[in-house]
């Protein structure tokens, strides 16, 4: 390699073979040279990975063949070096070689891998089979072999060959598992088995029983660490995949459950009533059916049973919790076939476990020592925790199909949640409740809500420092129940009316912690808040009256407190931020789920979000608060935008209509009363339109007045037909006019009314006199009433829409008479303002109605069909 053979930059392909060669030269030991330092190897791995030195990936066109050659040869020398390391007698060099081979399996290109995997496989297999090698070497061989299979799994085309390789590995691996006595080797072997079971499940099929018994033996004979037993049970849970049918899944599940039941019988002896045990056992083995062979075969079972009688409660229970983890994994792992999940049995098991709380029934008092009771109680929390995990797994796996059992799940939760006192377990209860809310929806939340709210109150109330002193006295149930302690009620009031200042004032007392009540851990408070958030999301407005107001006041207090807690708390900052986030999230959900009224603490809440947004030092918080402000903005500027892009529709489809209408228009009258503004507000941008309208108010109406004054009646007579309804209704009811326009008759009518109105508005006094004359056509009265009604409706709902145009269009189609939408709109926006000015005073409102009564009289000749359809409309 020439000394000045420079390359482009660090992305240059030419750089890679160079670097690879240097690494081989400088950092990898060979037969003669020993490791200069062990750390070099990790340096090698990181360099290889960062620069993908083994990938041999380049653009075929733009890469000079010289470089391709160079890389190829560099790769070959890398392999040669590895092989030479493998053939040395020094264990540490063999270890290095094997491990680097594993890295090569992961990193090399596909062509390279397919070309040489069988050679590599044979080399690794030799190490697996030779018991003489040191543990270190064999562990490395397992790891590299597992990497090899993982890579092989990505090439389904050569599945046959790779499966046959996998079959060869199973036996030696099992041998390692049974013969060796080091946990490191077990770990590696189990990992290899798991990889094979996932990537090439069918290759284990012939060894199914032996694998099961080997792994089960390790698991049940005890003596392995908790971590190890988790890995072992994970391997067992994967086993049914090797057969892939419904039956073998069920059999394994039943085996595990039988074993759990047996061990529980031993552990819980004297602690539970017989009925519970019997009911589980009855479900476990259905009458008339044989129980499955025990897990790991009969011989093992015998051994285990002998051993179990001498085992301590601790090891029994740790076995049980490992086995329950196995159930969870079986429920949540994917499986090729559909499976029968014995939900009722699993729930019975869960309830059996949760029922045991360590208290002794009267009758077994004489038979148990305090030591025994102590042993069992020390392990019970683990057991309870795994049974709650089992519920979570059941919910996950059954999804909507949990429905028939949902009632019993809820019953279990409500029964044991109340009495549970350990924070860890309560967190699990909360997470189960959360899963239930999300999975089962509003129908479920109706029934579980009260319970969850009660529990959350007990957990969150202790953070209410200000009345903490008073809360001390009352026990948790009372504070959570229907009757709140008076202090709470007081607080609710104060926080309702008041505000941030109040809390800021109280800042000094924030450090106070109730004395005889343990402080609820932050993680538990987070869990409670998250569950409340799920509840509010799913069913915040559905029959929530009993708990809603209490909850809202609590949430705002917690959220406010969270902003100062960071300074006084000694908990790690991250969790404090998490709590704050959870509180704000829940607060946001509570704001968003209101429908009946304005959220009572909305302004305080907004203030909090704004403050949170400024805390850029905590990016998570600032990010969430920005998001919350975005979502809450909809509450401030409510809108219901139509799905259909109406503006687009107008521009496109009613083009001709527009044109023809212009014609018709000018035919009727040559002069438009006032100049049509050419750019009406974009009808799609509803908010904008509204703002523009109000802004225009003054000058437009003035302009109008001016116009009207100039050519009083004639101009108005020829006015756009559709203006009136807008006058009468609110600015939000533009649509009205469109449907009015549906029939030509109505058009004319409106036109005239419009005229009158304009006149009236200009000279109120006169018009009253003029138009209070009776004899008006009764058919028009409903019109007014209807207007009135809808007006209220719409205003109260604050619903706005840019829907004007399509309705117009509809009416065009119906009546086969085009209309100028843009013009309509312009008028609408102008005349709206008129209405707005008038609507300020009742007199004017009266006026408008009177005008309506009067108008048919005024223009009897213009319109034949006034009556059209109106009587119907007022029947409601």
């Amino acid at each position, binding site marked *: 390699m020439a000394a000045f053979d420079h390359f482009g930059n660090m992305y240059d392909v030419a750089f890679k073979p160079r670097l690879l060669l240097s690494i081989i030269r400088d950092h990898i030991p060979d037969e003669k040279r020993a490791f200069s330092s062990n750390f070099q190897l990790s340096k090698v791995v990181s360099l290889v990975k960062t620069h993908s030195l083994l990938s041999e990936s380049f653009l075929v066109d733009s890469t000079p063949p010289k470089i391709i050659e160079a890389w190829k040869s560099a790769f070959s020398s890398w392999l040669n070096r590895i092989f030479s390391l493998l053939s040395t007698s020094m264990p540490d060099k063999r270890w290095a070689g094997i491990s680097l081979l594993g890295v090569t399996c992961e990193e090399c290109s596909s062509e390279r891998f397919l070309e040489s995997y069988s050679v590599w496989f044979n080399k690794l297999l030799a190490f697996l089979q030779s018991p003489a090698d040191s543990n270190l070497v064999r562990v490395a061989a397992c790891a*590299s072999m597992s990497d090899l299979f993982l890579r092989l799994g990505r090439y389904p085309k050569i599945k046959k060959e790779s499966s046959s390789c996998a079959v060869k590995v199973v036996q030696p691996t099992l041998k390692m598992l049974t013969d060796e006595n080091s946990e490191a080797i077990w770990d590696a072997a189990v990992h290899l088995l798991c990889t094979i079971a996932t990537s090439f499940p069918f290759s284990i099929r012939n060894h199914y029983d032996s694998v099961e018994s080997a792994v089960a033996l390790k698991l049940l004979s005890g003596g392995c660490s908790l971590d190890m037993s988790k890995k072992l049970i994970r391997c067992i849970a994967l086993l049914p995949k090797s057969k892939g049918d419904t039956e073998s899944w069920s059999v394994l599940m039943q085996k595990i459950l039988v074993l759990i039941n047996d061990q529980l019988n031993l552990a819980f002896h004297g602690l539970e009533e017989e009925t519970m045990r019997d009911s589980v056992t009855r479900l476990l083995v259905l*009458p008339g059916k044989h129980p499955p062979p025990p897990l790991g075969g009969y011989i093992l079972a015998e051994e285990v049973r002998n051993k179990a009688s001498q085992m301590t409660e601790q090891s029994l229970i740790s076995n049980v919790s490992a086995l329950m983890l196995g159930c969870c994994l079986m429920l949540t792992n994917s499986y090729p076939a559909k499976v029968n999940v014995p939900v009722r049995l699993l729930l019975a098991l869960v309830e059996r476990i949760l029922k045991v709380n360590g208290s002794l029934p009267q009758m077994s008092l004489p038979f148990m020592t305090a030591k025994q009771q102590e042993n069992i109680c020390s392990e019970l929390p683990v057991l309870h925790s795994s049974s709650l995990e089992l519920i979570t797994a059941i919910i996950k796996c059954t999804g909507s199909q949990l429905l028939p059992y949902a009632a019993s799940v809820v019953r279990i939760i409500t029964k044991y949640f109340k009495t549970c006192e350990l924070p860890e377990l309560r967190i699990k209860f909360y997470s189960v409740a959360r899963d239930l809310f999300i999975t089962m929806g*509003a129908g479920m939340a109706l029934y579980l809500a009260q319970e969850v709210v009660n529990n959350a109150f007990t957990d969150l109330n202790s953070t209410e420092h200000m009345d903490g002193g008073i809360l001390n006295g009352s026990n948790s149930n009372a504070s959570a129940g229907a009757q709140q302690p008076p202090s709470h009620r007081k607080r609710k009031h104060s926080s309702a009316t008041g505000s941030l200042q109040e809390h800021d004032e109280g800042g000094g007392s924030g450090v106070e912690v109730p004395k005889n009540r343990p402080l609820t851990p932050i993680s538990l408070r987070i869990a409670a808040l998250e569950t409340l958030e799920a509840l509010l999301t799913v069913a915040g407005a559905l029959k929530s009256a009993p708990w809603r107001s209490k909850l809202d006041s609590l949430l705002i207090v917690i959220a406010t407190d969270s902003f100062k807690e960071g300074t006084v708390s000694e908990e790690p900052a991250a969790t404090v931020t998490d709590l704050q986030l959870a509180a704000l999230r829940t607060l946001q959900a509570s704001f968003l789920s209101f429908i009946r009224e304005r959220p009572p603490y909305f302004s305080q809440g907004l203030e909090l979000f704004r403050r949170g947004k400024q805390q850029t030092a905590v990016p998570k918080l600032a990010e969430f608060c920005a998001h919350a402000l975005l979502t809450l903005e909809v509450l401030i500027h409510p809108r219901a935008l139509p799905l259909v892009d109406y503006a687009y529709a107008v521009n496109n489809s009613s083009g001709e209509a527009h044109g023809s209408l212009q014609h018709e228009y000018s035919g009727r009258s040559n002069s438009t009363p006032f100049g049509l503004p050419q750019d009406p507000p974009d009808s799609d941008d509803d908010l904008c339109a509204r703002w523009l309208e109000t802004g225009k108010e003054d000058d437009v109406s003035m302009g109008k007045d001016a116009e009207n004054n100039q050519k009083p009646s004639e101009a108005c007579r020829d006015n756009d037909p559709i203006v009136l309804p807008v006058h009468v209704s609110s600015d939000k*009811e533009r649509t009205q006019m469109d449907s009015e326009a549906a029939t030509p008759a109505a058009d004319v009518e409106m036109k005239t009314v419009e005229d009158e109105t304009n006149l009236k508005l200009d000279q109120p006094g006169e018009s009253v006199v003029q138009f209070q004359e009776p004899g008006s056509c009764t058919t028009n009265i409903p019109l007014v009433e209807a207007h009135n009604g809808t007006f209220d*409706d719409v205003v109260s709902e604050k619903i706005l829409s840019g829907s004007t145009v399509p309705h117009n269009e*509809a009416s065009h189609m119906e009546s086969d008479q085009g209309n100028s939408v843009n013009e309509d709109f312009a008028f609408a926006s102008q005349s709206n303002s008129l209405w707005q000015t008038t609507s300020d005073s009742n007199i004017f409102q009266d006026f408008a109605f009177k005008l309506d009564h009067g108008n048919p009289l005024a223009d009897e000749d213009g319109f034949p069909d006034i009556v059209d359809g109106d009587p119907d409309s007022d029947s409601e």
Partner: protein
Amino acid sequence: MEVVLASSSVDGGIGCWDLHTGAEQLRYKSCLSPSHGLVSVGSRFIASSQLRETSATSGSVLFWSWSKPQVEVKSFPAEPIKPLASNHPGTFIVGGALSGDIYFWEVETGRLLKKWRAHFRAVTCMVFSEDDSLLISGSEDGTVRVWSLFMIFDDFRGQQANNLYEYSFSGHTLRVTDVVIGNGGCNAIIVSASEDRTCKVWSLSRGTLLRNIVFPSVIDSIALDPAEHVFYAGSRDGKIYIAALNAVSVATNNYGMHIIGSFSNHSKAVTCLAYGMSENLLISGSEDGMVRVWNARTRNIVRMFKHAKGPVNNIIVVRRENSSNHISSNVQTSSRKQGANLPPPLEKYANSIDEDSDMSTMVSLVGGSSSVVPQYISSQQISNYIKELQHQGLSAASEMETEKLKHDYQMSMQMTNQWKKMYENLNKFCVQELLDGSQATTLDENQN
């Protein structure tokens, strides 16, 4: 692929068209569905209730797989079923009976999980809420009821409560013809149509009537605009009315309050409506046997499908995954597989479920957790080992170990010394004894 399915009360089979290309797909044979009796079960297969004669004392429910025109599974419930509905994942089917009972089946096993008395007269239409936790049913007796399925399955609470239902809306005076529910979880609105010529909008969260809309004619079907701006009502006078929801409603026009407009090209009554999500298409079925696809924006007809001579009475829009079951002639094997995938028939009676026997739930486990995805470990293993080596020299544990060993060593040294001393003492003693003895003997000998 979004497809339109249409069925009729006269045997024209189930017509199936691709909504976007207009291409006709398979026609599924022999279907005589009553109104609301056609449902796609979780997009997995098609189910339809059958009512040969209105006076018949028994009916049936048929299943078709997507790939085969023939009926594949026939079930015969205990009494005639008219409306069918299925929850969104397609795990449950509910059927409304002429007697007013609602039947609740689990699809996977066909088990009749529940049957309850829902109405006094025949159930006419049913719909699941967005989150599948509520069922809304309408009946010939004019009531619309909201059921929490959780409550239905909770026997204990069910016995305690006065009513199984959450709400019972009794605003309609005549037969309820259609019920739909909108978006928004528990804040959703329910719109019901009735033969009393009204449509009523109900609030789910408040349980109250929000709006009553009187139409010129009887409305047989409702379709909600997905943005719930308006809803479309298909009427017996052949028009499709547009009624305001969020849209600004109008005081007067030809039709009445809240009715914004109408459009029509049907000569005969509009019997069913559906809304195609992806392109804002409104699909209507008519008594003249035609299926019309409207552009909801322009209200122009985009496509027309000729279904049958008789009236079309069901239209559903189904989004199908572009799956392997392409309709082609040579997929006999795959279609046989498909057939095997269909669930067993729905059971006639609920098995008396013994408390002790375990009901298991058939579940397909897909999309497993990430915990089992194996990972490349060699490089991890290298670094672990190196860390271990690193620790060996300096770790506190090994120091402690050395200390302990040293201490042990000292202890045993002391022990050895003690033993040594004892041995020496003993030795001395013995030697002395011996010497003394021999001295004594020599003395004795000397004396002797």
